[in-house]
Structures are given as structure tokens and as C-alpha cells.
């Protein structure tokens, strides 16, 4: 009788098998490790930059988003935004900034576990981290859309500036400002991690799928009982 735990963990590989096919069985683990390192590193790196260029700010205004913080000339940008009635950027993605780091740590733990799970359940543990960069950008876009479309109608420049959707990546513009939004090193690392994880999944399935099938076939045959 195969227990639930065994069903999830999947078949174990004999040590001799591992040593004869070290690349085949080692690859998923190594790739998962790389992804974990990339994601952990990204915690300390900026995820997103926004530069605002205007004549009277020769050095531009800079804003940097980390998973848990917003830094740079945020107060200055907020000060300017009040003219068009945009809420303070500190009010955006508050929950995300609180839980972001914990989610990332959870991902790392899940990837750690995934290395021990040889069934298709591993996909469930890996997939969230794969989609993380996309989710980050979609969330960012939704916040910017929300802020840009919900301007205070009583702001000084309400008549001059219509609600708009700021650009989450790439060039945009508002008033005399050109905005340039670029991904930060952290987001790039997380994106690389996504691809590494996809590769890890591929090698994972290539190594363990035959074993799972073999076990299932064995379990199905009456003689084994």
C-alpha cells in the first residue's frame, strides 16, 4: 500500500542509479538551488525604477521599488503629484510591500521542498515562483492604473490633466515630465529564476516521470500486491 506521503513524494531513486546518472538526477536539484539563490538575492535588490525627466530637474527624479520598500525622491514626486490629485505613492501596494518578503521566502521554501518531490506535485510548488515576475508587473500596472484613473477632481490642475494610466515599463509622459520605467536587477534576477525553474521542471519531469510511470505500472499489476 503506497501512503499519501509516498504518493506525493514519488518514487525514491536508488543510490547506484543516482551515481550512474548523476547529471540526470542532479540537474533538477542544482537548477532549483540556482533559482533559490537568485530569488533570495533579489530580495536585496531593486525591482523597479522610475525616472522622471524634466528641464528643472537636471538630474531627474528617481524612484526605486524594492519588494518591501519604496525609496528615492518619492516625497518630491508626491509633492508634484498633488497638483494632478494623485494619491501619495506610499499608499500604493501597502499590503504587497508588507507580505512581499514573506512570499518570497515561502517560494524559496517551496522550491526547497520541490527538490524532494518527484511527482507532478512538484509543479505546484514551482509554478508560483515562475509566475512571480509577471504577477509583480501586473500588480504594478493595476496600482498605477488605479492611481492614474482615480485623480482627485479638486486638485489644482484637474482641468488641465485628464486621468491617465502611467506606464509600468517603458516611456510615458505627464505634463513636462518624461517618465522612464525600467525593471530593476531584482526583477531581472527573478525573471531569470523563472526560466531556470522552467528548465528545472523540464529536467525534473525527464528524470522522474519514467520512474513514476514505472511505479504506477508496478502498482497496477496484481502480482505486486
Amino acid at each position, binding site marked *: 500500500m503506497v501512503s499519501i506521503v509516498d504518493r506525493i513524494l514519488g518514487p525514491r531513486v536508488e543510490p547506484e542509479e543516482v551515481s550512474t546518472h548523476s547529471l540526470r538526477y542532479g540537474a533538477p536539484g542544482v537548477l532549483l538551488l540556482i533559482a533559490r539563490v537568485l530569488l533570495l538575492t533579489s530580495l536585496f535588490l531593486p525591482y523597479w525604477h522610475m525616472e522622471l525627466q524634466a528641464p528643472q*530637474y537636471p538630474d531627474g527624479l528617481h524612484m526605486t521599488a524594492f519588494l518591501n520598500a519604496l525609496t528615492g*525622491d518619492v*516625497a*518630491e514626486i508626491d*509633492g*508634484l503629484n498633488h*497638483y494632478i490629485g494623485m494619491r501619495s505613492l506610499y499608499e500604493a501596494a501597502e499590503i504587497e510591500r508588507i507580505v512581499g518578503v514573506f512570499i518570497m521566502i515561502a517560494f524559496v521554501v517551496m522550491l526547497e521542498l520541490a527538490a524532494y518531490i518527484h511527482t507532478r506535485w512538484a509543479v505546484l510548488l514551482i509554478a508560483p515562483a515562475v509566475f512571480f515576475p509577471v504577477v509583480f508587473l501586473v500588480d504594478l500596472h493595476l496600482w498605477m492604473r488605479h492611481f492614474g484613473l482615480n485623480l482627485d477632481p479638486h486638485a*489644482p490642475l484637474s482641468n488641465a490633466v485628464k486621468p491617465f494610466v502611467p506606464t509600468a515599463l517603458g516611456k510615458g509622459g505627464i505634463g513636462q515630465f518624461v517618465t522612464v520605467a525600467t525593471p530593476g536587477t531584482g526583477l531581472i534576477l527573478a525573471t531569470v529564476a523563472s526560466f531556470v525553474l522552467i528548465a528545472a521542471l523540464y529536467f525534473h519531469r525527464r528524470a522522474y516521470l519514467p520512474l513514476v510511470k514505472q511505479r504506477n505500472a508496478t502498482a497496477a499489476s496484481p502480482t505486486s500486491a
Partner: protein
Amino acid sequence: MNIKWSTGRRLAVLLAPLAMCGFAATAGAQSMRDVETVAKDRGLTTADLIAAAKTYLPSGQKDEYLMFASGGHAGQIFVVGLPSMRLLRSIAVFTPEPWQGWGFGVGDKIIAEGFPNGKSNLWGDTHHPALSETKGDYDGQFLFINDKINARVAVIDLRDWETKQIIKNPLTLSDHGGTFVTPNTEYIIEGGQYATPWGSDYAPISEYKEQYKGSVTLWKFDRNRGRIDKTQSFAIELPPYWQDLSDAGKLASDGFFFMNSLNTELATGGIQDKKPPFEAGASRNATDFLHIIDWKKAEQVFKAGKVEQIKGFPVITLKTALAEGLLHLTPEPRSPHGVDVAPKGDFIVISGKLDPHVTIYSMEKIKQAITSRTYSGTDEFGVPILDFDSVVEARIEVGLGPLHTQFGPDGYAYTSLYLDSAVARWTLGGSYGSSTPEPDWTLVHKTPVHYNVGHIAAAEGDTVSPDGKYLVSLNKWSVDRFVPTGPLLPQNLQLLDISDDGTNMPVLYDMAMGVGEPHYAQIIKADKLNTWTVYPEVGWDPHVQNINPMAPKPKMERVQRNDDNSVDIYMTAIRSHFNPEHIYLKQGDTVRWHITNTERAVDATHGFAVPVYNITASLEPGESVTIEFVADTPGTFPFYCSEFCSALHLEMMGYLMVEPK
């Protein structure tokens, strides 16, 4: 104007960088031929174009040096960039100045600290700025300036370029002999000039010799607090000569300072009674007296308590000074202006206006003469006079009306010639001599200046390590140099290039100074300053250079009526609104109006101006100020931001409504 082909090519090389920097981006088609065309049209010579190329700064490029010039009876400091000779800004000191919001609600208390004899006095006569020094070199931290008319000394912090302290000398009323600092800014030297009775009490001039006093004050500077510490300061009584410009010794002469004097004749004037006027009486003798004062010894005497309290201030009396050997005199050419110590401290250069020589004294010889008591006598107050010939190293005939001397890095000295209207370059001897091609102690060259030069300032030219490169001639008259500006003409500050040796020392630029009369100036390498572009934190009190915990903050704005019927207004300013905008007061309320500029952007300064109440403040980013007044006039007063801060600047206003009793 005659540019030949070869000159043109030379020009092309010289001006190529200029052309590339200035025009490349916008007009790639321009060439040196266009420069020649412009030069031809405007009648510019090759030398003119070279001068232009040496001084022109394209937009955005910054000056290499800053010149801090006194403003004369404008009572301010003026700061000029070199080599562009652009006036960068003024620093309000003794005179209220509305653009900086100085003396119209903010700074009033500092100005009032200096009121002479308790009387309101809203101007000054600034003469000799002194940058703070470390080991005899400018350190870019503080600036001091004297006020000749009322004997006051001001301290300016060079982090925010604001006056922090004005201190009134309790003993004397004029201090042409200030300010000069000792090599580590231990003391700021302030020489009293026109003798008066102590504290300018009344005494008829017939009692001049008995009642009128000469003095020098040593103000102790507390660098940590950025203030003069009056409790650690003292004065030395001197004969009632008019002690004039000074300079602190350094290196070889460290521990001493030197001070010129006029009117050693003790003339008392009286032209109205057919007596010789001061101009004649005070110039009768061929020599006046150089004062040589041992300040390190004087400090010990002060610390040992050998002082008399006069006007509540400790004074080492002349008697004590003589008993302790603090003071020696030696003859100097009459009517002297500058006494300037050479970079190594070994020579002291003095020019007397009525003597065509510069006279160079040797510190080594002075020390020997003091030790061996080589006196030629004593003056009538018993002060020993060192024998002139025993202490003089050299005399060089430089021209008519020599005034002030500055130094280069290469063994050259420069002396202004008032009557000749020229700047003389001459060579130092001793260990300096080997670095000049000309022999020691020789006049090398004179460059005409326009006109009547007073002081000159060379880049770091009075420090232990002069930079050379630039020299500014601070000319008193401009006569025909500029478009007539009415009968009152601007001063002419001329920039000279002293980077070459020998006779090449051309004038590069004329700067009209139409806002004051700079006397002395000091030129410091701009990168030595650590200037703030915004105050370090929001809620900064510039007077204490720290956060004011009571400063209004965003979301804490309010009008608070206290039990004693005084009112505290806590207001913030940010583009483009004050908060609160409605202020209701009752006639007679005592008001403390606290305002914080919460901006962090460079240059986001807000003004705060209230009509009728004579209030205007300049709030730089982060600054918090408190303005106190009594709301004695009822009415409706629109207050507003007086600095064009933003697109909605006109809307940055509010109403002060004072309800009548």
C-alpha cells in the same frame, strides 16, 4: 583688429575647445572663421579673444574659485566666481536684505546683538573678510567680517552661507584692523582704528593722549559651536595710535601678529581752528609704527588673569603688556595700508602709501632683535622700538602709492599701486628666490589697472600655499570703463591672469560691482567648501544648525491660542500652498509665526511676505523659522510667497485677518 592667417590658426587652436563645448551640439556648421567674423565685427583683438576664452563659462560649467569680497558700506559680503567674474550672490550681514529675508522678521535678533550702545543700527561698513584657516590654509568652513563703523565682527557659516553671529566690541567704535585669523582660527584679530575713550565715552579731544585708547581685540573662536566665545576673548590696550590692518604670523612667525598704525603723531586735527587737519598732522612723521604682538604669550597672560575688566571686558593693560614683553614696535613707512605675511611666515611686507617702496621685514631678525633688545628707543608710552635697520630684510621700489601685497606659489609677490593704478609683480628673496627666473627682491612688471586699485586678492594668496593663477584688482574708480550709470559709478573688479611668469600678466575681465564697495577679498578653491544645497532635514533651524523639535510638520499645522493671549501659528509651505491659509488674530495679540518649508528639491525656496507688518522671509528647502510680532494693526492682509516657486506661485497665498478690539 588684425587677424592674419597665422594668428587665425593659433586662435583656432585656442578657441577650439570653446567652440566645441559651446556650439557643437547646436550648430555643427560653425567654424573658427565665424569666430574671426564676430571678432572683426566687434573689434576684438586676439588678446581679447584669448581673454574671453580664458574666462567664458558655457552654461552649466562652474567656476574654479570663489571670491568672498566685503561690500564696504553696503554692509554685506559679495561672492564672485572666478574666472567668470559672475556675481553669484550676496550674503546679508549687518544690513537688512529682503531677498534673503534678513532683518524683516528673521535674523533681526542677530542684527540686534550688534547694536552699538543699544541703538538700532541697520547698516555696516564691511572691509576685510577672513576665511577660517587650518594650519594657515583656508578650510572653507567659516567666514568672518568686520564692520569698521561700529567695531563689530560677524560670523558666517559656509555650509548655508548665513550670518550666525554679530558681536559688538565693547571697547572701541571702529575696527578697520579686522578681521584676520590666526593659523588655526584660534582667534579673530580685530584692531581698533580711530582711538576713542574706552567704550566711546565722552572726553574732549584735548585729553586725547590721556583718555583716548588704542586697542586690539582677540576674539576666541569656538569652531564646534560656530560662534565667537566672548568669555574666552580679551583685548590688549595699545597706545592711542590708529591701529590698522593686521595679519597673523604663520609657520616661521606663528604665535605673533602684526599690525600697522597711523597717526603715531597723536594728531588731533582741528582745521576749523586753523590747526593742521588730520591729513597733515597724521602724516607729519616719516614713519609710523609696525606693532609686533606675541599673541600666544598674551593668551597666557590673559589666562593667568592679569587683566583689568574695562566695560565688562578683560583687557591686558599697556602696562602689563610691556611688563610681559607682549608688544614691540618698529618704524614703518608712514600711512601704511597692508601688512602681509609671506607664505612661509618668514617675511612681513609693508607698504606705506607715501613711500614708493615695499619694505620687507625678516621674522628671524625681529626675533633676534627682541631677544638681544636691539632697540632704537622707546615711544612716549614706553613701548620698545626695534631698530629699523636690524629687522629689515629688503626694500624694493615698486611705484607710487603701494598698498597691499599678495603672494603667488612661485616666489612672486604682488603689490597694488594706488597712485600708479597698477599691480606690481616683484620677486621674493631668501628661499623663495630660486623659483623665479628674475633675481631676488626685484620689480618684474607692472600691469595697469583701471583705476585707483585698493586691495588685491590672489587665489589663496595670503595663505601658506598660494595657488597663483588669478589675481583680482579691486579698483575704487571705474571712470570710463562702463556705460555711465549716473554720477555714482560702479567699482571695477579686474581679473588678472598671473599663471605665466615674467612680464605676462594681462587683465582678462572687468566686472562692474554696482552694489557695494568691496575692500578686501579672499579667493578660495571652490571645492574646499562643503555647501549645503538644501538643509539637511526638514524643520532645520539655521541659527542653531540643528533640527528644531518644535518646527511645524505636515499634518501638524494649526493656530494655537495660548492662555496669555499669545498665538502660535504652525505653518508649512510647499509648492504651491501655505497651510493654514486663514489666520484669524485679534488686535494686540502677540504672535509667534512658525513656518517650515517642507521641500527637499534643490532651489525650491519659498518666500513669506506679510504686507503692512514689514515681514519678509526666505525659506530655503527644509528651513524652519519663527517670526514674532504684535498684531497691532487691524485689517485684512493677504500674505504670499514672494519667491516665484512654481506654476501656481501666485496662488500660494493666504489671508491674515486681524480683528479690531
